[in-house]
């Protein structure tokens, strides 16, 4: 498997670490209710199909949002977390 790093181009899977769904970018505000924090920390969808995932490219230190189909394994997009919305 290969992933496109916006900084380095297409690179082998072994250079990356995945930490799961890109929901982790939607950090609640400090005063959000406990339910919001619970959902943010612990609740994740497990989609069969298109998914947005957080990957870290170790060699260059870039965090990415990768759009990937978990059924077809097709990588359809990748953006640096800094540029992703």
């Amino acid at each position, binding site marked *: *498997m*290969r992933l496109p790093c916006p900084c380095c181009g297409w690179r*082998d899977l072994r250079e990356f670490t995945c930490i799961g769904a890109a929901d982790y970018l939607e950090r609640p505000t400090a005063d959000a209710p406990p339910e919001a924090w619970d959902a943010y920390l612990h609740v994740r969808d497990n989609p069969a199909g298109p998914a947005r995932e957080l990957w870290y490219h170790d060699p260059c*230190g870039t965090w990415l949002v990768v759009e990937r189909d978990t059924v077809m394994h097709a990588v359809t997009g990748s953006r640096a977390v800094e540029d992703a919305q």
Partner: protein
Amino acid sequence: MKRRASGGSAIERARGVPFRFDGREMRGCRGDTLASALLANGVRPVGRSFKYHRPRGVLTAGSEEPNALVELKRDGAYQPNIRATLQELHPGLEARAQNCWPSVRRDVLAVNDLLAPFLSAGFYYKTFMWPRAFWEGLYEPLIRRAAGLGRLPRAYDASLHERAFAFCDLLVIGSGPTGLMAALTAGRAGADVVLVEEDRQMGGLPLSQGGQIDGRGADGWVQRVLRELQGLPNVRLMPRTSVFGVYDGGVFGALERVGQHLAEPGLVPRECYWRITAKRAILASGALERPIAHPGNDRPGVMLLSAVASYWQRWAVDPGRVVVFGNNDHALTTAQALAAEGMQIAAYIDSREDVAGEAPFPLRAGAEVVGTRGRQGLREVTIRARGRESRIACDTLGLSGGWNPTLALTCHQGARPVWDEAIAAFVPRPGMLPGLEAAGAARGCFSTAACLADGVEAARAALAELGLTAPDIALPEADDSPYTLRPLWQVKAPGRAWLDFANDVTTKDVKLAAQEGFASVEHMKRYTTQGMAPDQGKSSNMGALAVLADATGGSIPGTGTTTFRPPFVPVSIGALGAGARGKGFRPERRTTSDTQVRALGAPMIEAGLWYRPSYFPKPGDPDWRTACNREVGYVRKAVGVCDVSTLGKIAVQGPDAGRFLDFVYTGTMSRLAVGRVRYGLMLREDGHVMDDGTCARLGEQDYLVTTTTAAAGEVMRHLEFVQQAFCRGWQLRLCSVTEQWAQMAIAGPLAGELLAHVLGEVPDLPFMGYQPVQVGPVAARLFRISFSGERGYELAVPARYGADLFRQLVALAEGLGGGAYGMEALNVLRIEKGFLTHAEIDGFVTAFDLGLQGMMSRKKDFIGKAASGRPGLTGAERLQLVGLRPQDPTAELTAGAHLYPREAPAKATHGQGHVKSVCYSPTLGTWLGLALVTNGRARHGEMLRLDDGLRGNRCEVTLCDPVFFDPEGGRMRD
């Protein structure tokens, strides 16, 4: 030499090659495979079958071979399951038959064959059920002794393997007419092409079948195309290479036999594991001939017809008198061609009624082979035609049940092939696997002319996708005769008819499986073990499927195939693990003082990938603790020196650096004065402690964060995440500088005095202060921090000066009655002071648990703040950090032990907590421990029982404050 005809395109007859098989001296030719050499030497059984230990001969001439698996001597040990059909002969090669004792001709376990009526599918499952107690003591050892194909060598595998990476526009898998034309088309278009071929020689089927291409001998045409390809700088030819797996994103796994064929490989690796990344790929892997399941079809001498032709054409192996048994036109034309070249064809048997043709041999239409004879090898076959049986004497039976496209690679990502009635075989669907298309025989185009055209067509399509222009290419003329067959999967006659030769599965076993309810193809496979041998059923899957469909009354496409998974061919573990042995698997990180501390005799311990000195022994030390106590004494009474460069160092710089650090630390770093250092705690977002360390403000916009040795990578990744995800637009940069600085701790009452020797004067630096200093001409950094509770400094110099600095500091310390100290002493010093490491910060603790709740700012948001306030993460029910002192100071404490009320049994329900770290404190003359105890802070003075069931250690301990020594901290501040 016996059994060699004239000719043989692959061998150099003049160059004899001596080798040994099963202890017998033999001679082959240069260019032989082990299989062709054995056949040429008249060796018929080359191994014994798995279950019934029946003698087995060579069946095929390629990597799909189920029978001719041998043990090959290499690097002093016998490697099992080497396919003789792929192994090239070299002088001095030594091989032996496997699965037999004492020899392949006389094998004791051949008695199993007499028991065959009892050893049907599922025999083990049914027989070894009861009595239950017999399983472990009797059945399992017995079965284990008899099971397995070949024996694994016990010794460490000393053979060399390599891994390598390749990238290309177009990967062409297979170098037959299809692959050659595809590579030629793409090569002329300027594409970056890799052409891989499993065989030593490129060319595919024409090498074995002769015939004409482009008005000349097929072999000549192949050589001409290869010469052109070799001349193209953008084409790379890789013979002896098998593609075994297709992975996501156009990544292909391939195994190259680099030195497997060399008598003395020296430093040439045996195999190379390639990862080939290709933008597009063409599967031109051809097709495999399938055998026919007729009674007695496993006798040595029964071969695939294509193998008979291959051994004749390429290696000039004379098969003697040959009977050909087929069901298709290709079988007949092959027999005719072989007879024309002088092979003795005793008869041609075809199951179809309507077969006719000119032939110099008897042609029996509507006939079947219903039996064979010959103990160690075929002597005669029994033919049945119109209900009448007759016998024909022969040495070889060539089987041709039709051809199966070699499509396994197209299914590696889960797609299923489709059934093609015309050729009675499964074919790949176009677009089954993104970026890979099958062409030629691999998708069911069987004539040479069709293959040539299909190769060009596939290359054109790939070039269009690559944005390249395909050149006009003239199609060579070649044979275009149609291929027709009438399916014949099994001959219905008494006697055992084999499907899977390697795992001894007969048609009866498959029928039995269906009868007993294992009617799904995946169940049948597991129940009978069909297709589960090293050949993965390449010659048996289709036949077994057809017999199953027949038994269940279903159709073949309705029954479906089993799942194709990588690897397509066996891959040795050594090749998969190439480059990852020993230090390749776990590299060593060494500090700049490494050579010196090893020269001082220090045993090294691992800390992450780093190696650090444990202690520094002196002559006459009775044990390691003596050294450890001495080093603790250096620090408490004089001065000690320790290399602490392994701690993570992260530079955080920019106008927003302080704001950023406020967000990742529980405390406030933005208000830290320049030249000051603060202890900081980082939490994970779930509210637990991630790491602790110091943060120094070197300049207005310049901070240096330190982490523990173990968590350096995790912290760096975390900081990168927080910055990129939540601090967009903030002006700061992060950089790991761990390896750029060598940092030495100088600790003890005389630390200032030692530094005066290095810096020229005692630095006027308050506790938790920082200042830049000069060590001679070298710009250095001096921090006044302490991990021992004594007056302590850490002096950092650029890494290239680390070794010199360490040597100088140790010499000066020794002059002051101190010296170097190792990890053991460092641990004692920090436990005496209640300082934390990852022994305590175990991922489950909160700042509250450690008594550090005061470090959590109430005035700002920071990572982990919201979650750390959740119910259950604070309060009396938490395990909290306490100190432990034994009642008897000499009673040893052990880390990992659990704590219970004094009279309660050692049961989880009574558990009060557990011990995280222990040491013997020479300073206080007692054992000490740090533990996590439920509501521990409120229980100082209480007595508990320490119980270490693993080590059998029990003693009574008193809970106390975790700071045992100098609780006011005067020693490190003054």
